[in-house]
């Protein structure tokens, strides 16, 4: 079976890959078809994942694990939202309330917490790693914040120059990082396409 799954993965991957590089109609149609199939599979995977989420918390509640009571809240809210969404649709008033009253405020609040935690992390950084790179990291971050910081007298003098100077270095570094990550992703994907890595349970 593991050979069959590997063959399926390699074949589907190569078809899509060739479809990207060779814009032949046949390859494009095959790639689009496979993509549509995979989109459906991925969508079903979301439902399976949600079922797994429910099962995990149900199991915790059954076994009486620590703080498992919160799982009840999660399951109830999830099922209620899902059922209401199936009934009223994603653009219904109920879904808007779910977004405006719960999802956005909570996510925005979690993001807002970072305004404190990131400062805290920066403060502790020199205690955790006191080296040249850390100092450069903090100095650049502070200079960038100073450059964009509004002041009662307007922008900090030379803000543009400072930002362009910093971005001149950061753009080069970012580009190098992106290219390196692309190389890593390239090799990682190749291992899958060659069949060396089989994360789908094939090995």
């Amino acid at each position: 079976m593991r050979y069959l799954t590997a063959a399926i993965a390699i074949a589907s991957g190569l078809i899509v890959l060739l479809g990207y590089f060779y814009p032949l109609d046949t390859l494009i149609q095959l790639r689009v078809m496979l993509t549509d199939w995979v989109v459906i599979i991925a969508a079903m995977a979301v439902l399976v994942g949600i079922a797994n989420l429910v099962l995990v918390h149900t199991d915790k509640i059954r076994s009486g694990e620590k703080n498992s009571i919160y799982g009840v809240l999660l399951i109830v809210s999830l099922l209620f939202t899902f059922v209401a969404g199936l009934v009223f649709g994603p653009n219904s008033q109920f879904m808007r309330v779910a977004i405006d009253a719960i999802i956005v405020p909570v996510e925005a609040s979690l993001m807002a917490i970072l305004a404190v935690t990131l400062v805290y992390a920066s403060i502790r950084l020199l205690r955790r790693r006191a080296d040249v790179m850390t100092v450069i990291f903090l100095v650049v971050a502070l200079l960038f914040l100073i450059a964009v910081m509004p002041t009662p007298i307007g922008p900090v003098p030379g803000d543009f120059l400072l930002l362009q100077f910093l971005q001149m270095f950061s753009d080069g570094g970012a580009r190098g990082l992106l290219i390196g990550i692309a190389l890593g992703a390239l090799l990682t994907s190749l291992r899958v396409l060659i069949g060396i890595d089989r994360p789908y349970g094939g090995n």
Partner: protein
Amino acid sequence: MPIEAISAIIGLVLSLLIFSYLIGDNPLFRSAIYLFIGVASGYAAVVIWHQVLLPRLFQPLLSADPNQLLPVVVPLGLSVSLLAKLSPRISWMGSFAMAMLVGVSAATALSGAVIGTLIPQSRAAMDAFASPTVGRLLQGIVMLAGTALTLAYFQFSATRAADGSIKRSVIFEFLAWIGRVFIAITFGVLFAGVYMAALSAMIERLSSMINFVKSFLGL
């Protein structure tokens, strides 16, 4: 009470519960995040159902048109096989669908990495020297140096010294050190951007809460 007001009140309360995490992990925070996880997951499932499964899988199945029915038979079978993943004993049945998903994903990631990042970013690094002015040339040189040295920093291959230690050559280490400087500068800029985003989120949250209180109090 209008629905907007109810939403604002709930949002205000939940925001306060989340902010309580700054004091420490507490039941109020836990209640808020578990409620949020449930609602967000439910909403995502609803969107997936209405935006993908219903129009792409079930509507063609309900239609009597064989042209629409035929293309969805295979994905239907693969999708149903995914349900086997809920049981470890028969999870192997879903491996075929996951194999196809991983294969397509790998091809997509590979093409995205090469076509989307590797080639365009390399071209961009070269284009900085097109029609160079003094300032643009200086900027291009710095960016080129940053790109090359940052790439060089990640060199993984090394040699084993006589004393058994693994290291790279002195020249290589020096180039890598300069590359690390570029990386530190990049991270500093990115960190500042993330912080500004976080600060913006906090300001937005506080602003919405305070505005609601003001409006609620008629101020």
